[in-house]
């Protein structure tokens, strides 16, 4: 896809963001809070209507823990934005930004994926 075509798709996605997940309310998440994690993908469910992922991160105390991104954008939307699912397979090092569920602060909605080369896939503000 040409850069211009990508721009058009992104513009459409941004414009449609309100309806992108129209079947789904985001009120269960604290969307004002954005937490960035760096770690290694542990499990990945790259699918529709929402992808899901766990990320193994190492805390300041040196202990490893799993961060659960219980849902994110539809897989098809990410592919259309240019994300190659091979780049986020288990074992790959990435950064991820999420917003926590209000009733479970250990479960996050995945808003942004940042690959090792810095490429960002941002699906929701």
């Amino acid at each position, binding site marked *: 896809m040409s850069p211009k075509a990508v721009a*058009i798709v992104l513009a459409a996605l941004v414009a449609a963001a309100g309806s992108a997940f*129209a079947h789904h309310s985001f009120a269960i998440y604290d969307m004002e809070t954005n937490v960035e994690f760096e770690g290694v993908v542990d499990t990945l*469910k790259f699918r529709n209507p929402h992808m899901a992922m766990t990320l193994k991160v190492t805390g300041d105390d040196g202990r490893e823990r799993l961060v659960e991104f219980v849902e994110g954008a539809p897989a098809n939307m990410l592919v*259309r934005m240019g994300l190659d699912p091979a780049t986020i397979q288990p074992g790959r090092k990435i950064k991820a930004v999420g917003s926590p569920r209000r009733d479970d602060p250990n479960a996050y909605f995945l808003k942004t994926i940042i690959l090792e080369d810095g490429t960002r896939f941002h699906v929701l503000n």
Partner: protein
Amino acid sequence: MSHFVLAFFRSSPRRPGRRCSVLGLVGAVALAAAGSAAAQGTGDAARPDFSGLWFPAGTRTTPQPLPFTDAAQRLVEQYRSEFTLDDDPGRYCIWPGMPRAVWGAPFTIEIFHRPQDVTIYWEGYGMYRKIYMADHNPPPALVPSAMGHSVAHWEGDTLVIETTNLKPYPYMTRMATTSDAHVIERMRIEERPGDDGQMRRYLVDEITLTDPKMYKEPIRIVAQAVHRPDLQLLEYTCTDTLWDEYLQSRGLTLPDVDALPEPDEE
């Protein structure tokens, strides 16, 4: 507008006696055109051909708040008190159906347009819809469905579509509709500059939903999609999560078939 369209349909009785001759003519045309591009399109150069790949243009308008009847408003309040935000039909792959489906979610739409019908395939939820042309002896509605039974006619370059026989959609926070819901669409092509300044084709659908038990007045929605021949339709399987949850409840783990050895490694 909608009253005029309704009057048109109600004053245009079906003519079953024409079935054989019309079918014969359609069959002859179909045979003559089989295997050629001529089988697609409207069969009339003055009318637009909706065929192709489209993508929602992000300009759908839906009135808020919705004009619920008093009884429906009470149902909304009861629904909100009983259903949580997690009790969401979309998570369980329930089709939004008509008229909610039209150019909403950001997934590719593919349209196949023939003189006798328009077939629309939505990537999102894998939704499918058939619109029959009134002058090609449309089949009867058999069962109520999410997409309903749609019959269309041309008014100039605008395809006017009437949809009935819809299943109830009782999700009160998702533009609910009853079995009485009746949808009129006026679908046309507009060519105009896009956000990037280039001329683009837009598929514009002006929708009027009438559902007197649910809404005090007709609801008008305008939805647009932009022609995007560079896209492709991707598979959208919605039920994987549900299947995973079932397997988990049964304590079952699927075999990792990709971990099987290559034939020459055995």
